[in-house]
C-alpha cells in the first residue's frame, strides 16, 4: 500500500515538477510569475490534439508539434506583449499573463470547442507489476520524459554558452548585458523553453486528466505550490518540490480518515505552510539577499 502510494505519487509529482520547472525558468530570467501558464499549456496541448485527431499524424509527431507550438507561443508572448510592457511593475505583468491566458482560452474555445476531450495514451498495453506495485505504462513514460528534460536542462545550464548566459542573466541583468549577453534574447528563449516544457507536461497530463479549456489550471496551481516548496529560485528545487508534493498528496489521500478526506487541499497547504515556516525560502531556494 505504502509503496504503491509513493510510486503513483512520484508519477503525479513528475508532472508537477515539469510545470514547476517551466515556471521557475521564466521567473528566474524575467522576474515574471506566469499566471497564464496553465492556459499556455492547455493551448499547446490542443495543438497536439488537433494534429493527432484532425490530421491523423502519429503520436510522437504531434507531441513534437505541441512542443514547437509551445516554443513559438512563448516567444510570441515575450516579444509581442511583455516586451512593450517591460517598464510595468512585476505585479502588473502578472495581470498581463493572466489576460493572455484568458485570450488563449477564448481562442481555444473558438477553434477546438468548449467540451472536454479524451486524449490518447502514448503507450498502450497492460500495466506492469513489480512486486506489489502496479505501474501504468504511461507512468514509466512520464518518469522517462521528466528525467530526460531535467538532464537536458542540467547539461544546458552547465555546459553550453546559452545556458551559462541564462544563468548570468538570472544572477544580474546589468552585468550580463555588460558582458555582451543579449538579455532580450535570453528572455525570449526562457519563455520559449518554459512554455515548451509546459507543452510536454500538457501532453502527458491530458490522457490522465482529459483535455478541456480550464483543465490545466489546477495543475498549474499545484506546480506553483511545488515550486514554492522547493524554492522559487531553484530548478533542482522545482523537481524536488514537485515530487514531494505529489507523494505528500497521495499519502494524505491514502491515509486520511474518510470523514476528513474532502479536506485534502487544506491539509496539503497546511503541510506546505509548515515547511515554509521553517525554511521561508523553500527547500533549496537561496535566502533573499539582505540589503541594509
Amino acid at each position, binding site marked *: 500500500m505504502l509503496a504503491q502510494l509513493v510510486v503513483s505519487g512520484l508519477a503525479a509529482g513528475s508532472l508537477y515538477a515539469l510545470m514547476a520547472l517551466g515556471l521557475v525558468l521564466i521567473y528566474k530570467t524575467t522576474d515574471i510569475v506566469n*499566471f497564464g501558464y496553465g492556459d499556455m499549456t492547455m493551448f499547446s496541448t490542443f495543438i497536439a490534439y488537433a494534429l493527432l485527431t484532425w490530421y491523423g499524424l502519429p503520436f510522437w509527431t504531434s507531441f513534437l508539434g505541441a512542443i514547437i507550438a509551445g516554443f513559438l507561443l512563448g516567444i510570441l508572448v515575450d516579444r509581442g506583449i511583455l516586451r512593450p510592457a517591460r517598464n510595468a511593475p512585476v505585479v502588473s505583468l502578472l495581470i*498581463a499573463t493572466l489576460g493572455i491566458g484568458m*485570450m488563449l482560452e477564448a481562442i481555444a474555445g473558438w477553434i477546438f470547442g468548449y467540451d472536454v476531450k479524451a486524449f490518447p495514451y502514448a503507450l498502450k498495453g497492460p500495466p506492469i507489476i513489480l512486486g506489489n506495485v502496479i505501474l501504468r505504462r504511461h507512468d514509466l513514460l512520464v518518469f522517462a520524459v521528466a528525467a530526460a528534460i531535467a538532464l537536458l536542462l542540467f547539461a544546458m545550464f552547465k555546459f553550453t554558452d546559452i545556458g551559462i548566459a541564462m544563468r548570468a542573466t538570472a544572477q544580474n541583468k546589468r552585468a550580463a548585458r555588460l558582458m555582451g549577453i543579449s538579455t532580450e534574447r535570453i528572455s525570449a528563449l526562457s519563455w520559449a523553453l518554459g512554455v515548451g516544457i509546459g507543452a510536454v507536461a500538457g501532453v502527458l497530463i491530458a490522457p490522465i486528466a482529459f483535455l478541456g479549456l480550464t483543465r490545466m489550471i489546477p495543475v498549474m496551481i499545484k506546480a506553483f505550490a511545488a515550486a514554492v516548496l522547493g524554492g522559487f529560485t531553484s530548478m533542482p528545487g522545482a523537481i524536488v518540490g514537485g515530487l514531494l508534493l505529489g507523494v505528500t498528496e497521495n499519502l494524505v489521500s491514502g491515509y486520511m480518515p474518510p470523514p476528513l478526506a474532502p479536506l485534502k487541499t487544506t491539509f496539503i497547504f497546511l503541510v506546505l505552510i509548515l515547511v*515554509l515556516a521553517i525554511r521561508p525560502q523553500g527547500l533549496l531556494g537561496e535566502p533573499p539577499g539582505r540589503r541594509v
Partner: protein
Amino acid sequence: MVRQVLIWGGLLLLLFLAPLFLHGYSLYILSLGGVYVIATIGLNLLTGYAGQVSIGHAGFLAIGAYAAALLLARAGLPFWLGLPLAGLITGLTGFILLIPALRLSTIYLAVATLGFGAAVYEILPRWSALTGGHQGMRLPGLSLFGLKLDTDMSLYLLSLIVTVIMILMARNIVYSKLGRAFIAIRDHETAAQALGISLPRYKAYAFFISAFYTGIAGGLYAYVVGYISPGGFDLGKSIYLFSMMALGGMASIPGSVVGALFLAFLPFWLSSFRGLQQFIYGAALVSVVVFMPYGIWGFVRRWTMPDKLKRLPRPLRAVMEFVHR
C-alpha cells in the same frame, strides 16, 4: 478647498440621485461595484500599502458574507449591527495569515494566502450545518426601523453609504501614522524597524484592517445579492480582486475605486459581444498593463501633471487639478 468640496459634493449628489435615471440591473451592478470597491481597498491597504501579497482574499469575502448572513438569519441581528460585526469577525480571522506573513514574503506569501483561500473554499460546503452546504443560503430581507429595504434602490443606497464611509475611513488610515508605517514596511522592513516600527504589530494591524474591509464587502455582497453559496468564493474571485487592485493602481484609494468599478462593469458592457467577452476581457487586462503600466489611476495622474495642464482650458483644468492632487 472650496473647489474640492464642490466637486466631491457634486459627484456624491450625482451618485445619490442615480436611482432617478438608472434602473433595475444597472443599479444592481452599481451596488455590486460598491462591494468590490470596498474589497479592493481592503486588499490594496494590505498589498499596495503594506507590501504583503495576498491572492486568498476570496476567503475573507466568504467569511464576511457567511458571518453577515448568519447574524441576520440565525441571530436575527439588524443589519446595521450585523455588518460591522461581520467585518470584525473577519478581521479577527485575518490574524490566521499573520503566521505565514511574519516569515514569508513575495511569491511565498502569495502561495500561502492562496492556500488559505483554498482552505476556506473547501471547508465552506462541508460545514453544512452552518453554511447550508453546496446549496448555499438565502437571506431574509433587510429592514431598518420597520422599513423594508427590498428594492434595488434601497439596496443601492445602502451600498453607496457603506462604500463612502469605508472610502473616507481608508483615506484617514492612509494619511495617519498607521498608513505611513505600512508604507515604510513595504519599502524596507529593516529600515522600518530601525525607525521603531514593530513588524509583528503593524503587520497584524494590516491584516486585521484588510480582512475587516473585505469582510464588510462580503457582508454587503450577501445583502445585495440576497443569496450566497460557496461557488462564488473560489480562487478566481481572489484573482479578480487582485486584478482590480493592480489595474486601478497599487497603493492608491482612487485607483482601487476606478479599478474595481472598471472590472465590475466590464462584463456588463461586453454582454452584447456574444462569444467575444472572454477574449476582450483578456485583451483589456493586457492593454491596460501595456499602455498604463502604473494602473489606470497612475495613467490619469501622469496625464494631469501640472505642465501638461497649462495648455488646457480653465474649467477642464480645474477638474484635472482635482484629479491630480
